[in-house]
């Protein structure tokens, strides 16, 4: 099938809202090159389970695509604007194998195989250039919506570490103020209370998050919470499936990845009350790397994906100690889940320090970056870095105060 052959009934296998969305924009989809369209359909097919921010972004992109193709007649040469946007993708040469894949109903599988094809045929760089050009144009044509209030990101690192001689916050200090007289008592509850207050002041679905690398602390029900500890049963179920899959004849890395990507919450024993959030959480485990076995990797990836997809106004991320490194085969064994876990708090502190930097980078990619704030705190200790428009950069402060006060200084 070619894109031009798409018809309303082509989307029968799509979930209801996705089907309607695709049908509404059918004329635009028909004009897209096959090197591009399946990656868009990969988003469309998940529309029913997307967060509000990504739904809005997808709708904006499709509307833009429709305006570009409005004067095109399928099968005839495209207008200049369309060519300008997608010309790079038109230049990508595909293989008959790719063209014959079921890109309509399995767009994710297609995109995975397209990636392999691009590398093998040395077209990766050309595709990357086309994609970046497209993204730049899209940002200009469909400017992202400013947040309802300036964003606040918080990272808490170093749980379980009594003392650390190394140089913390090295990458974040140049962007804010280093505080070394923070009163740590009652720190986490103060931070969670601040998140709850923001959730109350700016109520919106999936706008205020708390991600914990262990078991979550008590928190307000208005906050969206994801935790490594809370997904223990799902993680063990997944490791069991990986173990079984790797013993299957003919199963290879690509097939395993495809199988994992198709897993739904119910396949891992989740009884869903919030399908959007549950799918998000399961994807952290099935699409993330290391998220199944290392809590620090899970926490960083969860924050990255939540920022990218849900674009929250507030996010508190608490890194917890991960297990020590063991042979990968053992880490991935479901049986190992039954043995006592030996933790690596110091290594986890280093992981969390880098993870906090990535959280800040990812927050700064969102609209309103010039007004957003970020706080990283060494849990249980008196050091933190605060980044905010109201604060100077690359400086230190010996002012004493607790974390509630520090958040006020950042406001």
């Amino acid at each position, binding site marked *: 099938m070619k894109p031009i052959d798409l018809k309303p009934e082509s989307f029968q296998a799509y979930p209801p809202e996705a089907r309607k969305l695709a049908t509404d924009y059918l004329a635009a989809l028909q004009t897209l090159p096959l090197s591009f369209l399946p990656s868009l359909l990969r988003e469309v097919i998940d529309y029913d389970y997307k967060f509000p921010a990504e739904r809005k972004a997808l709708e904006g992109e499709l509307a833009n695509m429709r305006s570009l193709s409005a004067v095109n007649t399928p099968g005839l040469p495209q207008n200049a604007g369309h060519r300008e946007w997608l010309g790079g993708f038109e230049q990508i040469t595909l293989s008959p194998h790719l063209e014959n894949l079921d890109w309509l109903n399995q767009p994710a599988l297609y995109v995975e195989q397209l990636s392999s094809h691009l*590398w093998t045929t040395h077209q990766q760089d050309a595709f990357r250039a086309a994609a970046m050009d*497209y993204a730049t144009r899209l940002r200009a044509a469909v400017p992202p919506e400013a947040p309802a209030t300036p964003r606040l990101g918080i990272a808490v690192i170093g749980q379980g570490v009594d003392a650390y001689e190394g140089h913390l916050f090295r990458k974040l200090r140049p962007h804010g103020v280093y505080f070394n007289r923070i009163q740590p008592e009652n720190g986490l509850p103060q931070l969670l209370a601040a998140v709850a207050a923001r959730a109350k002041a700016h109520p919106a679905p999936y706008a205020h998050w708390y991600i914990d690398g262990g078991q979550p602390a008590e928190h307000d029900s208005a906050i969206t919470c994801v935790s490594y500890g809370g997904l223990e049963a799902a993680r063990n179920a997944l490791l069991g499936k990986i173990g079984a899959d790797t013993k299957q004849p003919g199963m290879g890395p690509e097939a395993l990845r495809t199988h994992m990507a198709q897993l739904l919450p119910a396949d891992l024993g989740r009884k869903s009350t919030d399908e959007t959030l549950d799918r998000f959480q399961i994807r952290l485990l099935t699409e993330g790397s290391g998220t199944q076995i290392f809590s620090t990797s899970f926490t960083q990836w969860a924050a990255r994906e939540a920022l990218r997809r849900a674009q929250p106004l507030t996010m508190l991320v608490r890194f917890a100690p991960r297990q020590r*490194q063991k042979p990968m085969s053992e880490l991935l064994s479901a049986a190992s889940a039954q043995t006592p876990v030996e933790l690596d708090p110091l290594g986890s502190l280093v992981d969390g320090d880098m993870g906090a930097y990535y959280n800040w980078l990812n927050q700064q990619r969102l609209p309103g970056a010039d007004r957003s704030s970020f706080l990283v705190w060494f849990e249980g200790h008196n050091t933190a870095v605060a980044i905010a428009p109201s604060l100077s950069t690359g400086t230190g402060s010996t002012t004493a105060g607790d974390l509630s006060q520090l958040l006020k200084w950042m406001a």
Partner: protein
Amino acid sequence: MITKYSQSALNRAAALGSNPREVVQRLAWNRREFLRDAAGLVLGGALLSSGVASLAAATPKKRKIVVITFGGGARDQETIAPEGQEYIPHLMSELIPQSSFFTQVVNRGILGHYVATASLATGFYETVNNFASLPPEHPTAFEYFRKQLNRPSSDAWVVAPSNGFNRIGESSHPAYGQGTGATVVLPKHLLAAALASGSSDYEHLLRDNYETPFQVPELKGGGEFQLAQLDQLLKLSVDDFKAHARTLSSPDELSVYIVRQLMQKVAPSLLWITMHDIDIAHAGTYSLYVDGIKRTDRLCAEVWKMIQSEPEYAGNTTMFVLPDFGRDADEDAGGNGFQHHRTGGPLSRTTWMLAMGAGVREGVVYDRPVDATDLVPTLGAMMNFSTPHSQGKPIAELL
């Protein structure tokens, strides 16, 4: 400035809004900083015309070459850039000052470890499946070397991590191929074969592939073949091997132990060592990634010391050290920083190389781009074999 997410487009392919110009500028900045910080080094461009031929003089013993891939993908900012130099103290203080150092080695091929290492070994950007047990399609340096110089199989060796690397010693090229390449030794397979039954004392040495849970492919002859390698080629008893392995802490340390045995007992002229501990980065744990870099740094210095202390090698050996490629940039929204090497961005494609020892000028930095495929033609020029199927060209500064 941080690159913005491209909203829903971000999750698509490479619609992943990094600004390549910014990354390139950052790379250039890093390299200039490196030049400034590596005190005592001279910029190489000014020296090019000054009689390099004299350097190649007088190596009375047969020339030997050792290549170490500083494996598993390492970025500038955790190695040669100012903020990364603390992780490579041995390279910074011992090896680089004695080397000709190339600050820009560009890999234009597929950024998977097996296929990229195969490309380094053939001088051609290979396209074999990174996760399949397949030989490179173009002749390897080992095949050129052995065929043209009529060398025995014992004169070219590869010491490699297990994943798929068992086929890297010789190509599927019709003019070369089976029996004409390097002997490949996979230390983890040796150890697995030496262990009569599973022992938890050694599990840390049997760590393998960090990108997939799949274990290594079956090898010809199974355990018997591995044990024969131990006994007949390395002249090493199973008990001695097991006893020493117990003192080591990582797979790459096991590889370097095998390298020592090879140097002492076989003394190959062309020895290729692929490190892999660094690739734990795929698990997303930054601390384990930099631990891997520190270990690899130490092991490179150990290999150089071995070269100096072995009579067969001292004075007539040239050593190369280079990462197979880098990893994704923190600023590239399409990746996840150090964790992977999937974006194909400039930082993941651009890395460095040092060459030191016989015939190589000391303490010189070359800040011009060279290509990853230039390594094989350079080895050929140094050892007097031609590399007609390679895409690269010899690095003039080393000849």
